[in-house]
C-alpha cells in the first residue's frame, strides 16, 4: 500500500468534482419525477429526481431565486444543472439551474400552483384594478407583428374609433426570448416621461396551450404587469384561454379583438350619447321655459279674475244704486222744488218787476247816499233796461 500516493478526503472529492466537470452538462436535461420536495429557510430547495420505476435517485439542490415555476412532489420535470459532490456531507447532488415542468399535466399543475401563490399575495385583487381612460389618446401595444392578434386588434380599433396614436413594440410572444421581451417592453413604456407615456398598455397574443403561453404565465412577467404604472389590458387567445397576466391586468379581455373593444369606445355609441345629452338638456330647458310661461299664464289668470271680480262688484253697486233710486228720488225732487221757489222769490229781477230799481255806482250796489257826491254818475237798473243819471240833490234820512 505504501507505494501508492496518499491524498486527503477533501483532495479526493476535489478530484471527483474536477472529473464531474468534464461531463458536458449544458448539452442535456435530466427528466424525472419530483419527490421529497423541501424548502429550508425560504432559500434552499432540495428534492429528489426519480425515474418512473423509482430505482434511480438524483438528489437536487437549488435556491428559491433560481426556481421560476412552482413545483411539487409527483410533478414531471426536466432539470438543467451541474453534478457535484458536497464535501461536508459526502453527498452527490445535482446543482440545479433551471427546472421546467414537462407535459400538459405538470405544466397545468405548475400553473395552478403559481396562480394560487400570486392570488394569495393579492396580485389579482379587484380593489387595485384601475379604470381605463374613456377616450385614450395613446395606446402602447405589446405583441408580435407576425401574430394574427396584431391585425385583429388594429382592425377592431379602426372600426370603432379614430384619432388614436398606437405605439407598437414588436416582441416575441412565445419561445425563449418571450419573457425578456415582455419584461423589456413593460420597462420601456413605464420609463417614458409623463408626456410620452401611453394612457393604456395592451398586452395581447393569440391562443395556445400552456406551453405557448408560458411567457404570459411567467411569474416575473405577471409581476411586471402588476407593477406597471400604466393600466394594462391583457387579451390572450380564444375566449376559453386564460393566463396569469390576464388575472393581474387591470382589464381582462377575452381576445385581441375584445382588447380593442375594451380600450376604445364605439364611435356610433358616443355619437348617440352626445345626441342624447343635447336632447336631454334641451328638454330640461324647454320644460323650464314652459314652467315659467305657465307661471305668467297663471298670474295673468289671477289678475284677470280680480279685474272681473271688481267689475262684478261695480256692476252690482250700480244696480243697487239704481234699485233704491225710486225711494229717495221723489223726496229729493220735492226738496229741489222748494229750494227753487225760495230762490225764485229771492231773485232781484222779481223785485224790479214790481217797479223797484237798483242803483249802482262804479259797479257797486248803492244802499246809502252819504258817500254820494253831487254830480256823480250812477247806474240805474230797472226790470227792463237801465240808464245812467247824475246826482243833482241828496237828502240824508
Amino acid at each position, binding site marked *: 500500500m505504501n507505494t501508492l500516493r496518499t491524498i486527503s478526503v477533501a483532495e479526493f472529492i476535489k478530484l471527483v468534482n474536477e472529473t464531474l466537470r468534464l461531463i458536458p452538462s449544458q448539452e442535456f436535461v435530466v427528466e424525472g419525477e419530483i419527490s421529497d420536495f423541501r424548502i429550508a429557510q425560504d432559500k434552499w430547495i432540495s428534492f429528489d429526481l426519480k425515474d418512473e420505476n423509482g430505482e434511480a435517485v438524483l438528489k437536487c439542490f437549488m435556491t428559491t431565486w433560481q426556481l421560476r415555476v412552482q413545483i411539487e412532489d409527483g410533478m414531471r420535470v426536466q432539470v438543467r444543472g451541474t453534478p457535484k459532490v458536497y464535501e461536508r456531507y459526502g453527498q452527490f447532488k445535482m446543482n440545479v439551474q433551471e427546472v421546467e415542468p414537462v407535459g400538459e399535466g405538470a405544466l397545468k399543475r405548475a400553473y395552478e400552483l403559481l396562480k394560487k401563490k400570486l392570488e394569495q399575495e393579492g396580485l389579482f385583487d379587484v380593489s387595485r384594478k384601475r379604470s381605463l381612460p374613456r*377616450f385614450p389618446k395613446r395606446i402602447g401595444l405589446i405583441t408580435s407583428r407576425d401574430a394574427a392578434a396584431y391585425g385583429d386588434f388594429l382592425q377592431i380599433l379602426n372600426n370603432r374609433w379614430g*384619432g388614436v*396614436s*398606437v405605439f407598437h413594440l414588436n416582441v416575441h410572444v412565445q419561445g425563449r*426570448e418571450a419573457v425578456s421581451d415582455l419584461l*423589456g417592453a413593460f420597462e420601456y413604456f413605464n420609463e417614458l416621461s409623463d408626456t410620452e407615456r401611453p394612457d393604456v398598455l395592451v398586452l395581447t397574443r393569440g391562443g395556445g396551450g400552456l406551453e405557448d403561453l408560458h411567457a404570459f404565465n411567467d411569474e416575473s412577467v405577471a409581476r411586471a404587469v402588476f407593477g406597471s404604472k400604466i393600466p394594462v389590458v391583457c387579451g390572450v387567445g380564444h375566449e376559453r384561454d386564460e393566463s396569469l397576466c390576464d388575472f393581474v391586468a387591470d382589464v381582462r379581455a377575452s381576445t385581441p379583438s375584445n382588447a380593442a373593444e375594451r380600450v376604445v369606445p364605439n*364611435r356610433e355609441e358616443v355619437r348617440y350619447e352626445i345626441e342624447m*345629452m343635447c336632447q336631454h338638456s334641451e328638454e330640461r*330647458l324647454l320644460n323650464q321655459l314652459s314652467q*315659467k310661461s305657465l307661471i305668467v299664464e297663471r298670474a295673468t289668470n289671477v289678475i284677470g279674475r280680480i279685474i272681473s271680480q271688481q267689475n262684478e262688484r261695480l256692476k252690482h253697486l250700480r244696480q243697487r244704486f239704481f234699485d233704491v233710486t225710486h225711494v229717495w228720488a221723489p223726496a229729493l225732487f220735492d226738496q229741489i222744488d222748494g229750494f227753487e221757489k225760495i230762490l225764485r222769490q229771492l231773485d232781484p229781477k222779481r223785485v224790479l218787476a214790481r217797479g223797484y230799481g237798483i242803483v249802482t255806482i262804479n259797479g257797486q250796489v248803492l244802499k246809502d247816499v252819504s258817500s254820494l257826491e253831487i254830480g256823480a254818475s250812477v247806474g240805474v237798473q230797472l226790470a227792463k233796461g237801465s240808464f245812467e243819471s247824475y246826482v243833482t240833490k241828496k237828502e240824508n234820512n
Partner: protein
Amino acid sequence: MSQKKKTIDFASSFEELEKITQWFDSEENVDVEVGLKKFERGLELASELKKKLSEVENKVEEIKKKFT
C-alpha cells in the same frame, strides 16, 4: 411621439358636455338665461365632437427596440 391636440380636446370637450347635461339635471330651477347660454355651448361642443367622431384614422408607430 407627437402630442395629438385634437384628441385631448375630445376628452375634455366631452367632459364639458357631460357637466352641462349634469347641470341641467341637478338644478332644481334652471335659470333660463344661464340655461340658454349653457345649452348653446352644449350644442357647440356637440357639433365639434361629432366632427371629430368622423375622424377614422389611427396612427401606428413602430418602436424600434430590441430586448434580446
